[in-house]
């Protein structure tokens, strides 16, 4: 399976630790040939936008700036066609309503199916990764379910630690959706602000998974901020409907649950992912029928965890 991913979530369990890495995001994008005029800086200051989805880069390693050097004419034509079609749809969609839907639908809709796997092209929207990126031996593959109506993620976990002297835990795999793109590869976000529950229909094999939602962040330190919750599968031949309100998602950064918690902001959601990292070595499988969001009027909880300040500054008594 194609492993192009931009920082896909690598969570073995909640409590992984990763070495810190500075991010290389600049506010202006400079064309690469200008770079040669500047004295060679450290590779981390390559002036390019990280909108190009690359393979996993281990934190601390230099970014390889590989632009596609082979120019394919027909691919170029196809790309132009695709982007202009998207742009045209967006332009005319605005006259219909926000996000191409009539306004009344956008406001009132109660259930919205985001991903459904009907056909092999739906698998293109997902990226599968495993701990082979860091040198482990787990495998994960994604394919269509038998009747072409579901996606089937399967593979084998192995928690042998890669012997590079700094990794402590291993044995995970992950399936993450790709960031939605507008025309000309601009960033687009999902707007789920009118919903409050995540609704999935899955069929697992009894293993506990974790759902990760990544939102759009402003500061580079927040790049690996992910909101998580557990997905416990029952196993068995029957499908399982899972409803998780968004108020239950807790914040974690690089796999470490954070002290100061806040509810997830749903107006700019980028990706959703499923991770398996229970320490049971062996094969696994997960079938997903659809992923949807819905508005549950009966659910009134705003946030499930306390938001008081965890590390209060001590009051100085003068």
């Amino acid at each position, binding site marked *: 399976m194609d492993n192009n991913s931009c920082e896909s979530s690598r969570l073995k369990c909640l409590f992984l630790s990763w070495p810190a890495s500075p991010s290389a995001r600049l506010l202006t994008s400079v064309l690469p040939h200008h770079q040669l005029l500047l004295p060679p800086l450290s590779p981390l200051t390559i002036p390019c936008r990280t909108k190009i989805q690359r393979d996993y880069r281990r934190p601390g390693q230099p970014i390889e700036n590989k632009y596609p050097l082979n120019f394919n004419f027909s691919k170029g034509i196809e790309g132009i066609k695709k982007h202009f079609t998207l742009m045209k749809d967006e332009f005319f969609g605005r006259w219909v309503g926000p996000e191409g839907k009539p306004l009344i639908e956008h406001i*009132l809709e109660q*259930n919205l199916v985001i991903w459904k796997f009907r056909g092999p092209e739906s698998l293109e929207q997902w990226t599968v990764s495993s701990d082979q990126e860091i040198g482990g031996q787990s495998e994960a593959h994604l394919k269509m379910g038998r009747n072409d109506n579901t996606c089937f993620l399967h593979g084998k976990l192995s928690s042998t630690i890669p012997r590079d002297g700094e990794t402590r835990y291993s044995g995970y795999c992950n399936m993450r959706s790709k960031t939605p793109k507008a025309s000309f590869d601009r960033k687009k976000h999902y707007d789920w602000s009118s919903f409050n529950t995540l609704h999935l229909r899955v069929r697992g094999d009894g293993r506990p998974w974790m759902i990760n939602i990544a939102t759009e962040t402003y500061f580079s330190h927040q790049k690996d901020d992910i909101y998580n919750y557990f997905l416990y599968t029952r196993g068995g031949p029957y499908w399982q409907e899972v409803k998780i309100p968004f108020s239950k998602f807790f914040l974690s950064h690089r796999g470490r*649950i954070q002290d100061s918690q806040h509810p997830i902001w749903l107006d700019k959601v980028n990706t959703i992912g499923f991770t398996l990292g229970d320490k049971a070595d062996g094969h696994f499988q997960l079938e997903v029928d659809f992923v949807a969001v819905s508005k549950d009027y009966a659910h009134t909880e705003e946030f499930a965890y306390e938001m008081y300040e965890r590390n209060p500054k001590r009051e100085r008594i003068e």
Partner: protein
Amino acid sequence: MKCARCLLQLQGLQLQGLQLQGLRLQGLQLQGLQLQGLRLQGLQLQGLQLQGLQLQGLQLQGLQLQGLQGQSARSAAQRGALLQSSSQPHMLRNTQHQVIRRFHRSPINDKNQPIPAEFIDEDDNKKDKSLVIHDDLFEQVARETKTKATFNKVVEVFIKQDVRRRGHVEFIYAALQKMPEFGVERDLAVYNKLLDVFPKEVFVPRNFIQIMFNHYPRQQECGVQLLEQMEGYGIMPDVDTKVLLIQIFGVKGHPVRKYQRILYWFPKFKHTNPYPIPKNLPEDPVDLARFSLARIADDRDAKVTVYQLPCTDITESGEEITLPHVVGIQSPSQMELLAQHNPSRPVFVEGPFPLWLRDQCVYYYVLRADPVPPEEKVEEPYDPERSLAYPLQLDLDLDRDLGDEESFDVEDLDEGAVFAMCMTSQGDQAVLNQWVSGLQQNNPILGRVPTLFRLEQGPRELQGAHKTKSDHQHRPDPQTQREEEEDDEVSVEEEPRRSQEMKQ
């Protein structure tokens, strides 16, 4: 070499592999002496002058030094090479296992000397210059007696050896790694005992600068790692743990903060599993099959039937035949579905499918049918007499708005109905035939329906409609009831099984 008293002058002498026993040297002058692999036993040196002496891998036992002048004597003591001075009055001596203390010397020299606190055997003279690894302490415990008691004993030995607990960080890291071998990784008392290895009150920061600058960072990291291993195994720490942590690291350090985080988040996530697995799963395969079948059936009314208990028979020829257990489950709604099944369409026995219970995988088999094509679907109206308390079907003209639609805009997956599940240790066709004939007692339709087996060697995905081969190979012959021999091997392709009389 036996030398009596004489004024011996040795200059530039190199002694290798020398053994001196019962030597008396008086007025000895040694300059530029190199001694390697020297063993001196029962040596008496009087008025010795040593200049520029290098001693490597030296063993001195029962040495008496009087009036010794040592000038720039550097001794690189390594593993298996311990210096002992008879001038120490409180020396421990043991013929077999000598626990030998180091010299009391100035701390400046301590940098060159890694920590030699361990047992030595007299045969075990390791003179290699590798890093000191405390795994050896645990390795020396005999292979067959790796229990909690021996683990505790090793920890106690370490604690008693040195009041300053030199090398406790490495020791604790080694101990954490060795815990699974001794089987104590889920034991809170052992973790508390391991925390006890840390010297108390030494690492507690005393002012705000020390707090700010990560006082004793290595020890704090070690404490955090200990707690992280506890957390990884899901062990909730104790009030003893808290007291120990506060005594060792103080309230303001990372370990106590980690402990607080564990205590905050663990209770929140303890009961999040809607399908919890008990901590101690049953070990008996039949009980385990019961539990897992009840779990996957998702129906409280489903009934578990044990068709065969595991037993080992000895036939007349003296062979041992192990009969596997066969446990099946079926719920009343599944029985109804099976009763409504069209007898001309086959049913399939599929498997094995995996089911994970924490870290154990069990396999189950499924009796199911292909989905009914839409032209054959019969929509039976609800029988109003089925439930007299409330109507099952309401024809209300609800004025539902766009915002009130409660169903998703997804087509329903049409997968075939599942009629029963079973679990067995040996999933070949003979055993599954047993199961199906056991099912036939409650579902007489199985006597008329052809049953096809779709078994695979390894675990396999649950599939929906399998549209390809089954219709070709299936030869419906519901009227005749001929017995057919069954193959005992596991077959990948489907094999038709004639409907049979019930097995006696």
